Each structure stands twice: as structure tokens, then as C-alpha cells.
């Protein structure tokens, strides 16, 4: 019935399965939608979409697939333009002008154009769902009876119905990759959990209690055990200064999320590429630092290594001794990177620069190669993949 819609959703990478599709059909049969397009939209949304980040994609696909049929099936939609028309009539049209409008294809055509315009406007800027059309560009101006354009939206409810709900694309900012809040980061980082029982024994260990009670000839012998805790260990290295200044906010968020999420979290800063020194306080980087060798010796191989940096630098900084921009480095950055990766097998590089620009910077390519492709963009999607890689 809606097979095309279903497959278009799949193509748009909304995760839908046959089971949900069948549920939708079942619900339709049971009369949950009562033959109105709006109801069908809501019903399809509640059955097929299971994550708010996919709502926007769903709205787009819905608008695309069911474009044009709503006027036939939904009576309410037709009434609304008539309301607007009444308002238009108030703008004192002469008979000649009315004739002209008829010549242009009549009111229906006009309203279609209006609908189109609303849709375009939706697409172009996010917040603009209230006012449409100002001087010059409005289709109404073109017909010549309202040079200022028609303002719609004085009455909220009417406007709301005119713009179809899915065309409003209210859920735009819930769509994935763009926005990074600490909450989202935390959700992504939850993948990295490793539970183990450590510390004070507070929980009743029933199995052990029964076993030892039995051994004790039936006399009750309570056994306690420690609660489970997340014991994953993480070492984060942040690139700081220079080109990273543009990404401070994203890094801050990542850091604050990581801090609350992991008990065993160690972090150090570096500049552009990892060399023989790392530091904890950026203001005192020249006086109080930690030799990279010491870091490698302090944290055992079961730490998971996350490097955050834009990897944007001159290729010399990676490949040659003495290539660093701030000091003379005896060994090339490449050597240090290989050293780290040899110790920490679970390692990823998070890059705040959007993935589509990576190809234009040779140093990003080099770093990606050094990391054996384990470089991920600093977006929710990228972070999730990175965590998956780390917990493999």
C-alpha cells in the first residue's frame, strides 16, 4: 500500500523495519487514522520513527512522497485558502485585476504558488514559519494588487493549518550530526562502559550465600559482594591553541561530558602533534610538563586513548624531526604517534573539522593513515562510531 513510502524512508536512512510497517498497516486497518492525512501523518510517525533525531528526515520524506494528494483527501485544507482569499478581496481589487488573476490560472493556481513559496521559505531558513513574502518576491506582488506582499500569520491557527505540519519541519534541530550538547556526548560515551565489581562489599550475593549456608549445615551464612561499577579507563589528549581555537566550545563540551562519565579519566594537552612533552595546564605549559615517555609508562595498555585535534598543520610537523612550529623536536611527530599507538591498541582520533574538508588538508590524510583510518568527526554520529571502535 505504502511500499514506495516505506522504501523511500529506508533510502533516507530512517531505520524502519518490516515489523513496524506491518504495525502501521494493522493500525490503519483498526481505524486509528480515520482517513485524514494529518492523522495518517501522526500515525505513521508514531509507528515508524523511534528516535527524535529521525523526525526531521521523516518529515522530509513524507512531504516528498505525499506531496499533492492532500488537497484531494483533506477537506480542511481547502477551506483555509478561501479565508485568505477573503482577506485578499478586502484589498480592493478592480474587476480588471480579478480578470487578470483568472487569466493567470485562477485562485487555485495562485494558492499553489503560495504553498510552494511557503515550502521554499521553510527550507531556506529555519525560523521563518510565520511570515511569508515581502515586497518584490511575493507571487502576489507580481499580480499587481498588493505591492507590499501578503502577510499571513496574523491568525496563528490558520497559518498552522495552511502550512502542513510536516512541511513545517519543527524537528529540524533535533536532527543528528550538527548539534553537540554534553548530554548527547554522554549518551554516546555510555557505549564505553565496562562493569566490574570493585570496592566495598555492599550487595547480597545470593548464590554464594546459599552455597555457603548449605556447606554450613543449614546455618545462615550471609555473603556480600561489591556493587558493579564502570571501570573503563580513558586517556584523552587535546590539541590546544592555534587552529583549535575555533573548536574550543566543542572540546569543552566533550571534556565536561567525559569527566562525569568516566571515573578513570586522564587528560593532557599537546599542540598540533604529539611530541616529547605533554602538559596539564595550558598556562604553565613551558614550566610544568610531563615527558611523553613518562605518560606512556604511567598509564598501562588497558587505557583507551582518545586524541582530539584538527590535525591541521604543515606535513613537516608530522614527518620530520625539527618540524614543530614551537620548539626543536628531536624526533618526528610520526615516531611519537607510532610509539603511542603501539602501547594503546584501543585508540581513536576525534576531529572537530567536518569530514568533508578532510581531503583538502594533507596533514589530516597523513594522520588518518597513522591512525589506520580510526579518525572520526566530532559529531554525535562520529563519536558513536569512535566509541564502538574503542569498545570492540
Amino acid at each position: 500500500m505504502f511500499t514506495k513510502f516505506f522504501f523511500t524512508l529506508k533510502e533516507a536512512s530512517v531505520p524502519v523495519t518490516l515489523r513496524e510497517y506491518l504495525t502501521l498497516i494493522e493500525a490503519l486497518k483498526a481505524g486509528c487514522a480515520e482517513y485524514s492525512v494529518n492523522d495518517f501523518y501522526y500515525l505513521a510517525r508514531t509507528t515508524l520513527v523511534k528516535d527524535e533525531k529521525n523526525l526531521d528526515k521523516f518529515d522530509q520524506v513524507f512531504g516528498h512522497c505525499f506531496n499533492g494528494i492532500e488537497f484531494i483527501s483533506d477537506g480542511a485544507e481547502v477551506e483555509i485558502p478561501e479565508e485568505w482569499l477573503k482577506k485578499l478581496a478586502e484589498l480592493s481589487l478592480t474587476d480588471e485585476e480579478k480578470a487578470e488573476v483568472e487569466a493567470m490560472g485562477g485562485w487555485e493556481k495562485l494558492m499553489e504558488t503560495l504553498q510552494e513559496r511557503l515550502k521554499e521559505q521553510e527550507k531556506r531558513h529555519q525560523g521563518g514559519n510565520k511570515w511569508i513574502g515581502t515586497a518584490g518576491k511575493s507571487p502576489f506582488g507580481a499580480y499587481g494588487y498588493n505591492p507590499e506582499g501578503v502577510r499571513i500569520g496574523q491568525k496563528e491557527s490558520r497559518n498552522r493549518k495552511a502550512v502542513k505540519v510536516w512541511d513545517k519541519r519543527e524537528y529540524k534541530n533535533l536532527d543528528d550530526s550538527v548539534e553537540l550538547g554534553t548530554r548527547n556526548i554522554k549518551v554516546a560515551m555510555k557505549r564505553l562502559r565496562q562493569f566490574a565489581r570493585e570496592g566495598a562489599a555492599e550487595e547480597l550475593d545470593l548464590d554464594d550465600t546459599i552455597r555457603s549456608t548449605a556447606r554450613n549445615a543449614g546455618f545462615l551464612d550471609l555473603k556480600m559482594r561489591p556493587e558493579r561499577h564502570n571501570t573503563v579507563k580513558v586517556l584523552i589528549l587535546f590539541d590546544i591553541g592555534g587552529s583549535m581555537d575555533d573548536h574550543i566550545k566543542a572540546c569543552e563540551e566533550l571534556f565536561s561530558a567525559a569527566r562525569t562519565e568516566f571515573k578513570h579519566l586522564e587528560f593532557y594537552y599537546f599542540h598540533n602533534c604529539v611530541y616529547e612533552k605533554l602538559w596539564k595546564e595550558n598556562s604553565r605549559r613551558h614550566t610544568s610538563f610531563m615527558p611523553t615517555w613518562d605518560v606512556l609508562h604511567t598509564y598501562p595498555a588497558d587505557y583507551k586513548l582518545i586524541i582530539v585535534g584538527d590535525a591541521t598543520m604543515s606535513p613537516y610537523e608530522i614527518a620530520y624531526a625539527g618540524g614543530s612550529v614551537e620548539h626543536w623536536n628531536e624526533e618526528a611527530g610520526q615516531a611519537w604517534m607510532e610509539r603511542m599507538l603501539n602501547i594503546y591498541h584501543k585508540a581513536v582520533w576525534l576531529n572537530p573539522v567536518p569530514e568533508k574538508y578532510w581531503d583538502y588538508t594533507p596533514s589530516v590524510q597523513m594522520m588518518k593513515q597513522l591512525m589506520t583510518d580510526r579518525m572520526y568527526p566530532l559529531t554525535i554520529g562520529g563519536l558513536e562510531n569512535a566509541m564502538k571502535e574503542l569498545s570492540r
Partner: protein
Amino acid sequence: MKFKGTDTYVATEDLMIAVNAAMTLERPLLIKGAPGTGKTVLAQEVARALGKQFIEWNIKSTTKAQQGLYEYDAVSRLRDSQLGDDKVHDISNYIRPGKMWEAFTADESPILLIDEIDKADIEFPNDLLQELDRMEFFVYETQQTVKAAHRPLVIITSNNEKELPDAFLRRCFFHYISFPDTETMEKIVDVHHPDAKRELVRDALKIFFDVRETPGLKKKPSTSELLDWLKLLMSEELPEEVLRSKDPSKLIPPLHGALLKNEQDVHLFERLAFLSRREQR
């Protein structure tokens, strides 16, 4: 019987469809949304509107799926066996039914709220898959099967702290409660404070949405905070002019503590007020 909102709960059209679809097909309904948009209240109101029994299961980080089905109190049985209590011979004396058991054995199909499912361990939803699907489970200790005579309407809320497993999501209807627009908000306020003066509500709403739009707020005030604030405003019986005054020196809304819950946000707001005062000069 259809859910259409109640005299104390304004349900949007899409929410009604979701609730009714879940009810008709007897599948669980998963509700997500920003804190304070009325996720938990929804279940109570559905129960009230349809006159059904309401069973609430609050999930904590230590909650196990098994606790919702039943618990076997082995320790008290061991103790009783030492004391030579007769109860000890019947194991069913030590089976404590959980909330799901309670919901399955209710006389009429009840509303079961599983509140904040994301608080629990990541495996929690997976452990309930079969139980929610078939609405039955097996009690090993007594070899009995508990089967729902009337399938309850299960409403599950999540605050998005953890992702839920796909297999679980496939079985649910999903609804995301988005932040209400001005029109819906007016209705909500109307339902909660019918005696509020119209002007007061309009002015307060304007301030409320202005506050929400202040850039850089750590935590934007939500519906429940607005309702609290209105209650405060009314009990204080502030003169209407206070809210309407355009005087920037009074830019901080009265009793702002109900709206802004974060020290930094209050500071930010004060700073903005200060700036606009300076501009006026």
C-alpha cells in the same frame, strides 16, 4: 473509548493519535521529550480519563527487570527454615509479585507506567522484551505462568540518558513531546489556572517565551516551571503593571527563581538587564 485529553491535561492531536493507536493495538507506548513537558503526568491522566487502574513502576539505576516481575525472598526463607516456621514448606510464600505481575493480574486492563526506563542498566529493556510482547512470564520457583488476562496499556518514559535497544524500539509506538507553542501553552495555563486573569497570563507568557529565547541560557524554563511561576505570581497578587512595565531596570521578571534554576543563568540575565539599561541612557 478514546483518549482526548482531560480537564487538567492538554493533549495535542499527534499525542492523542499515538495514545489511541497504542491502546487499539495493545502495544507499549514510548514517550520521550524535554524534562517538564508532562511525560509522567500523561500516564496518570490517561488512567484518569479512561477510569482505569494506574500502576507506577519507577526505575532507578539499580532496578533489575526481574524486580518488575517478581522477587524470590530467599533470605527470609532461609531465616524461617532456621526458626522452624511452617511457612517454609510452601515456596510461594516467599515470592513477592512485582509491578508487572500486579498489572497482568488486574481485573480490568490497567495503565502501567514504566517511568524513566533509561535510568536503569543498558540491558534492562532487553530483559523485558518477551514479557512486554507476550504479556506473560514464567515463575521458575513455583512453575507457574503468569499471563495477562487483559493486556495493560504500558506507557514508558525516557529522558534520553541511554539509547534504547533497537529490538525494544521495534515493539513500541513512539511519541516525542516537543515544546508547546504559544497557543497550546495558553490552553495548558488555562487548564491549570482557570482563575488567572487573562491579561496576567498573556503578559506572563510573553515574558516566559522571551526568557526562553535569551541566548546562552544553560537550562531553559519548561512548562512545569511556567505553571509554578504563575501560581506564585497569583498568590503574590502582583499588580498587572509590574509584568507589563517596559522599564528595562525591571527587566528581571518578578519571582524569577521559579523560572531560572541555575545561578549562572540568573547572572546572565542580570547582565543582559544591565546592558540594556546602559543602552537606554
